[in-house]
């Protein structure tokens, strides 16, 4: 399938490059609807991979790449089932999103996240699966999950640890603060900085450059230098599910859902 337009995203293959555009109001939250369409997206890799050199993931929404997991949906679904059944639902969601993000992580072509605006939680975890993050100078990054009493659940900690030092990981996790693109570039999270509104254009020129290299050597280099941390990813799911059963999590989710303040990502 060379092009697709769904309810939360669309993609188009053009001259060897797949452009995936997230477009789900209000802030590209990753819930069951986006997950289902992301599963379609990675399923298309099988037929497209041999003629694809690069993939760019970007957002059509103003001011945001993705605000992360759909916490409102998560709260609604968790509140609608008996307490003992909650881990089963969240585990199933996590297994599916991990499969999607692992597929993006190990795709045999160069993957580029073109980030503008807020890139939080699950949005950052999606970007971290890509080989290269190109960020608009106005972009901001954060892992705010601890405010809700759980950890990032889409592979964030293992992938951040794979790419960066533990000091940065702990700062992001334990403060929940957002860091700007310049800081993210300095610590090595972001590969290239773009001027305001230019991230996608720079991602396209980067994809065109990557297309010039031998595909076999490129895939071998990627497999060698970017192994998927399967064991840690498995641990992450277990820790997340264990933390999720606590009443503090439901209380924090309820508070978040009802919060209309300017910094709902902070406790």
């Amino acid at each position, binding site marked *: 399938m060379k092009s697709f337009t769904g309810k939360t995203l669309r993609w188009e293959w053009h001259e060897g490059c797949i452009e995936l555009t997230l477009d789900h109001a209000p802030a590209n939250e990753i819930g069951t609807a986006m997950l289902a369409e992301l599963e379609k997206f990675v399923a298309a890799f099988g037929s497209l991979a041999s003629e694809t050199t690069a993939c760019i993931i970007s957002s059509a929404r103003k*001011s945001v790449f993705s605000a992360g997991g759909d916490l409102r949906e998560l709260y609604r679904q968790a509140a609608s089932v008996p307490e003992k059944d909650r881990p089963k639902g969240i585990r199933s969601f996590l297994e599916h999103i991990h499969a999607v993000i692992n597929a993006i992580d190990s795709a045999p072509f160069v993957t580029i996240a073109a980030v503008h*605006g807020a890139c939080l939680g699950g949005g950052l975890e999606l970007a971290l699966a890509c080989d290269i993050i190109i960020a608009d100078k106005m972009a901001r990054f954060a892992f705010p999950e601890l405010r809700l009493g759980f950890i990032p659940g889409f592979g964030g900690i293992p992938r951040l640890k794979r790419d960066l030092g533990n000091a940065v990981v702990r700062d992001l996790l334990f403060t929940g*603060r*957002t860091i*700007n693109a310049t*800081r993210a570039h300095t610590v090595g999270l972001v590969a290239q900085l773009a001027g305001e509104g230019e991230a996608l254009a720079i991602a396209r020129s980067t994809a065109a450059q990557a297309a010039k290299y031998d595909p076999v050597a490129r895939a071998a280099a990627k497999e060698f230098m970017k192994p998927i941390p399967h064991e840690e990813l498995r641990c992450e799911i277990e820790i997340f599910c264990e933390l999720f059963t606590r009443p503090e999590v439901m209380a924090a989710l309820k508070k978040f859902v009802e919060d209309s303040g300017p910094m709902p990502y902070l406790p």
Partner: protein
Amino acid sequence: MRTLEQTTREVLDLAAKHFQLPTGSLAPEDDFFKKLGIDSLQTLEMLSHLENHFGIELPDYEVQGVSDFKTLAERIQSRL
């Protein structure tokens, strides 16, 4: 080194420019959430503009609860 007065003026001018308001239409005591009508994503945008302009990092938790330009400028000043 900027004075607090200069920092405050730059914050006001930056906010007015970004949110396309006439220069001089904002005052130090103004509640920027009410005056600018900004949501959480726009708050992050403003934070990026301020950090890029002043060349500083301003952790969110240091401006949490701040709603007027004067206090915001004080927080920025302490990082210059």
